[in-house]
């Protein structure tokens, strides 16, 4: 149920942090990370995941396959 940030790709530019509708993104160890418990893949908020849309480096914000995909409840 979440996206994750590939830390080796992250430039720590902080563009994603304020765009996340769930306030799931925060700085950690010099880059940014996504709290998978809060991430909804932007479902119900926007047409596309905001971290992916704003990130300047391709393939930095990607689906975290280690957790199940997010299911909208409503």
């Amino acid at each position, binding site marked *: 149920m979440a996206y994750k940030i590939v830390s080796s790709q992250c*430039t*720590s*530019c*902080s*563009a994603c942090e304020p*765009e996340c509708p769930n306030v799931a993104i925060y700085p950690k160890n010099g880059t940014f990370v996504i709290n998978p418990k809060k991430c909804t893949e932007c479902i119900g908020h*926007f*047409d*596309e995941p*905001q971290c*992916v*849309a*704003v990130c*300047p*480096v391709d393939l930095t914000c990607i689906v975290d396959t280690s957790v199940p995909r997010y299911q909208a409840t409503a």
Partner: protein
Amino acid sequence: MSYSPGISLPVIQQPEAIMQQVAEHKGCGTHGGSGKASCGSGAGQNDLAPEIWEKVKNHPCYSEEAHHHYARMHVAVAPACNIQCNYCNRKYDCANESRPGVVSEKLTPQQAAKKVLAVASTIPQMTVLGIAGPGDPLANPEKTFETFRLIYETAPDIKLCLSTNGLMLPDHVDTIKKFNVDHVTITINMVDPEIGAKIYPWIYWKHKRYTGVEAARILTERQLQGLEMLTERGILCKVNSVMIPGINDKHLVEVNRAVKSRGAFLHNIMPLISAPEHGTVFGLTGQRGPSAQELKALQDSCEGEMNMMRHCRQCRADAVGLLGEDRSAEFSTEKIMAMEVNYDSETRKAYQAKVEVERDAKVAARQSELETLAGEMSDIKVLIAVATKGSGRINEHFGHAKEFQVYELSTAGAKFVGHRRVDLYCQGGFGDEDSLDTVIRAINDCHAVFVAKIGGCPKDTLGKAGIEPVDRYALEFIEQSAISWFKDYLDKVNRGEIEHSVRGDADIRQGAFIAA
């Protein structure tokens, strides 16, 4: 940074120390052949409306002449960006607009404000604080405006500037006005979305990523709307454009008209800087930058329309210092945080008053020399290169020069038309002879090079290359000396002692700034 040009360089350590000297910008300086132009340069005073002249005359980024006497600094508080440019690789430093890369230090607004006050207290010439990145200041509005607020409250005499890609500009124009930011730079590389699609792969706007022509259309609409809104509110606006041969080089004449009609007071056309090792789209596709003469021809063709700026050094967003010096090491974050800063505006005022006396003397010297040219009739125009570290004087040793300023001489006087950086060429890996060759390539379109001092060996080599080394005006004012030399040159041509010939083209350095 205004997202502009951006190429970036493979990041190699870019110690924060680099803040390249402020040196960069210099102004628009020109007085134009057509009688137009010139912010700041001596002529500016006559070409610009008095209220604009009053605002720009001490601004090193707007006036080549002011850059000899005043300094600006940038603070890197705005890392996020909202568009992608093909000349920029966000992972690395940007060579075009000098965006520091990921290894560079980012500052919080509090750290930035303290740094500005520390620098201003130590360097009384520091009159301007700019926020230009490393991303786009208006994609980081809280950080940008908090920094402005802190400085505005403590040091209201420091001018505040902002450099943006323009996408979010219409939303923030009123806040910009509120903090008394009176200078804004917008990077506008096109007004035609079809051309824009070749420069910008995407933008992020209103929670959506747009690509292609649609992205470029939104961007150009927002940029021009933002420019109009600034003009309505009396905020000075400069436009930066990156000249990309084959993509927007011819189109920039149209851009020039579009921004002029909307009230931009100055246009700064900069060369694309592009190399494969920058890792940018343009670097990898082999897109070349313009030569020195291609750039000058475009600037000249726009000059009849409006003031052109020619002194831009495409400096880094975290530069500190004055022309020809690098003070960055004194102002690392660690040192600043440990510093006691007492901002003393009186000392600064006293220093600046002295500077004004010196500037007046320079203008008077040029005027009196210019009078001796009166009556000379000739179509001859020549370029000369000058080694200077500021104050408007020929005061740099040839071998120490990191850049040369280029003046065009004619019977109308001496006109600043640009500068050529040579610092990269002189850095490691090259022997002395190689670096001398690269200096010659950088000033190959000049008839003479004016220096405070020069060794015998480079003197001979320059002479053989057809560039006359001139050291007899050491420490004198640049324009006065140049006019005096030009008079002699015309006399010799008239007496048949020498034959006037046109010189060739010159290189623009292709590389990012590594260290100063």
